[in-house]
Structures are given as C-alpha cells and as structure tokens.
C-alpha cells in the first residue's frame, strides 16, 4: 500500500462535491423560512405537516408508486429472460442483439421520450396514461436489470443444475429449488434498482404522463411557485431518504448473492 497523500485529499473533496446537494437539502426542509437562502432562521416541522394535506400530491405519489412497481416487475422479468439467454446459450447475432437491448442506456433520454411519444400517439393511437410511462420506463430500466442479473447468472455454476437433473428433478423443480435461490439476491436488487430509477425519472415521464402526473412531474410544476419550494424540499428529503434505504438494501442483497455463489466482491452495480 502506497501513500495516497494529495490524491486522498482530492477524493474526499470530490465526495463532498458529490454529496453537497444531499447535505443541504434537509437543512432547508427543516428551516423556518419560506425563502430558500442562508442564513437559516429556525427549526420547524411545518413543511412536512403541510405535505400531508396536499391531495394532488398524494394522487401523484400513488400514480408514481404504481408505475414504479409495474416497471420493476416488467423490466426484471425481461432482464431475467435476457440474462439467462445471454449467459447460458449461444445464438446467432448474440452480441448484436444484446448491444441493441443495452442501447437505451446511452441514448439521450429526450430521444427515447420523443420517439415513444410519436410511436404511442401517432402510430398506435394510444392515449397517454400511466401505461405509456410504464412502457417507457421498462425500456430504460431493462439494461440496468440485465447488467445486474448477468452477474448473478454468470456466477451460477451450471454443474449445480445438471446435478439436480441427474438426481431426478424435473426442469421446473430444478429451476425452483436450485436456480432461483441462487439468483434471488440479484433479482431483488434488480427490482429495487428499477423501482428507484422509475420513481425518480422525470424527462421521459414529463412527455408521456398525459393528465395524471407522476411525482417528479408534479414537483416540476411546484418549482414555479416560490412559496411552495420549502414543501418540495421536505418532499425531496423524504424521497432521498427512501432512495438511500432502498439502495442500501439492494447493495446488501447483491453482496449476499456474491457471497452465496462463493465469489469475491469486485465492485459496484454496473
């Protein structure tokens, strides 16, 4: 281990840069002033209390939760299929097909939003609703799910499945008894990640929601009213706390999955 010196200092400074917004957010959520500026004037829980009374926000929250749950389910299911296919089987054009599936990861989000808007409204004549958002979010979440599930399936030793079949299990019961328990941590972290992405996503949702806004779209609307901004800060504090808890759980399951498969931990989500 070498001395880190300046580089270590830089790393800490960089982390402060990364965390600055998240550290400042709760300060204003509890600050007793309608103006978002320093110096802070006092402690209050009023903004949180005000949150409970806004009916439109509750509707937006319910809408967002529904979309996020459906997105998590669909994209994880698609992710399982793709990751299973990619790790176990070889088929023609495999690299090309997988590349195409991963493409939404690097496409500018506005391009995804605009093209889906055009496809949904002009070609299929679908009205904009929660379902158009779910379709779009599934599209952008699936690559993340595949990335997580790929590692889960790669760490799965095929010999274990073969052993189960040799010992007289049917393919169905092998999947249920052997494959599933070994990859379930990957599935849980994939569900949580796609849930979090969908809950926070704004750029696409803004184009596709129609008249039932999701929570981020609703927040965007609130930015226009300076008096409501402390409420947004309070709401944001709750959202950030929930995201961090969900991510910590996802990370915990990812590590447990690695430990179960007997692998060494090599790093983050992507």
């Amino acid at each position, binding site marked *: 281990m070498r001395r880190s010196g300046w580089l270590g200092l830089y790393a800490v400074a960089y982390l402060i840069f990364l965390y600055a917004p998240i550290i400042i957010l709760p300060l204003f959520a509890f600050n007793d002033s309608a103006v978002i500026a320093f110096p802070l004037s006092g402690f209050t829980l009023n903004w949180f209390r005000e949150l409970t009374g806004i009916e439109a926000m509750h509707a937006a929250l319910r809408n967002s939760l529904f979309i996020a749950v459906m997105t998590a389910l669909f994209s994880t299911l698609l992710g399982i299929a793709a990751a299973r296919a990619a790790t176990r089987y070889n088929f023609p054009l495999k690299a090309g097909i997988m590349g195409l599936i991963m493409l939404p990861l690097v496409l500018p989000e506005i391009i995804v939003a605009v093209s889906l808007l*055009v496809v949904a409204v002009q070609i299929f004549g679908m009205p904009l609703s929660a379902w158009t958002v779910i379709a779009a979010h599934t599209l952008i979440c699936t690559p993340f799910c595949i990335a997580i599930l790929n590692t889960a399936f790669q760490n799965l030793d095929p010999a274990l499945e073969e052993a189960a079949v040799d010992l007289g299990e049917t393919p169905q019961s092998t999947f249920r008894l052997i494959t599933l328990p070994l990859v379930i941590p990957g599935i849980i972290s994939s569900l949580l990640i796609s849930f979090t992405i969908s809950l926070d996503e704004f750029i696409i949702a803004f184009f596709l929601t129609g008249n039932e806004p999701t929570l981020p779209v609703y927040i965007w609307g609130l930015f226009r009213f300076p008096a409501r901004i402390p409420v947004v800060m309070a709401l944001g504090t709750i959202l950030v706390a929930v995201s961090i808890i969900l991510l910590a759980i996802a990370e915990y399951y990812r590590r447990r999955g690695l430990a179960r498969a007997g692998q060494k931990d090599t790093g983050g989500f992507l």
Partner: protein
Amino acid sequence: MFSFWTQDFLSLDTTPTLNNYREFLAEPLYQELLRRSLIIAGSVTVVTVLLAFPIAYYVSFYVRPERKSLWLFLITIPFWTSYLIRVFLWRVILGFDGVVNTALMNLGLINEPLTFILYNPNAVVITLAHAFAPFAILPIFVALERIDRSLLEASRDLGENAFNTFRRVTLPLAMPGVVASVLIVFIPTIGDYVTPRLVGGPEGLMIANMIQTQFLRLNNAPLGAALAVIAMLSVTLISLAFIWLTRKYLRAR
C-alpha cells in the same frame, strides 16, 4: 420518418417533405442552439472526465481491496437520488444569495456575490458534471482495475520515473475506459432539458429545450422530431469521429 411530415395545429399531413429540415437550415436560432448544445456537452464531458479520472485512479490504486466496493457505493448513491431535486439544489448552492456566495462573503474573500456561476452555461456545466460523475468514474475504474500491476513494476524497474510510467503505461491502458466514459457522458448530456431550464438562464438553453417546446408547447411535433433527428445525427457523427481518432492515436504509439 415522422420528421418528414408536417403538422398544422392538430391535423397531421403525412405527405413526405423536407420542409422541417429546410426550416432548420433557414432559422439561425436552431443552429445556434445546436452549436451551443454541442459546446456545452463537450465541456461537460471534458470537465467530468478530468474530475473523474483521479477518483477512479485513487479507488483503484490506493484503496484497500475490501474497501473498494464501499467507495463505489458511496460514489453511486448521489446518482440514484432524485435528479430534479439535485438540479434544483445546485440552483440553491450557486445562487445570488446561495451557499457559495454566502460562504465566500463571510470569509471575506469577495465583497459582492459572484454572478458568473448561475443562469449561464457555467452553471449547466457544473450541475451536469455532478449528475454524470458516476457514469464517468465507473468505466475508468473498470479499465484501471484490469491493468496488470506487474507492468507498472516492470516500467519502474526499467528506470522510468513515476510520471513517465503513468504517461506511457497506465494512461494508454486506461484509454478504453476513458473513451467509454467520454461517450457515456457526452451522448446523454445532449438530451437533457431539465438542467438548462433550471440553472441555465437564457444563455444556457440547449437543443433539447427546443425539442421539448416544439412538442409540448407549439404543437409542431414534426419539427421537434426533425430537430431530434438532427441532434442525434450530430452526436453520432461526433462520437464516431472521436472513436476513430483515439483508435488512430493509440495505434500510432
């Protein structure tokens, strides 16, 4: 395909036409927006990757192996929290009576608030450099992790100093990661309209803002689609040119 049609308020004329592209060429505003978007996205990319490289280097070379995933986790957390809220908070941090200005005034370093950090392209660059940080760090980190450490020792044994070892061994081997992170930052940056709208001010608006306006406000979806196609094409061309240049550069060595 849609971009070749015309829309007249709510009715849609499906005869193919190049009018939308002609309008792009005729209207200097659109070209100015596209040029500005490319410049902003370019500076965001340069800033983000330059800031990210030392971090990736630090985590890969100096952090103990069992602590690495904790560091990566810490780096990725801010990325997963609400994007809108983060961008809005940058407005709070950089604003006229925001955190940066208040702190600098209290320290006596400046006498009046700095105005060049909000509602202009600088603010967009800072905010996006924050938003895309993990995207830049992770590919470089992966590339650095793959470098065989014995190569570095060999270089040192053969008499190169630390700086030359870095320049002639580490950097070329890390190039694939750098290229990946440049692309992964540059391409999505073009499509962002939240940051320019919230912190960019009139000078910081980008092509995506115009696409959004055409679709949702002016009801001219085909022109919006044409702008999207043009933006996409320019991004693709620049990315391909960049990949080609780095390939050539690496092969020449």
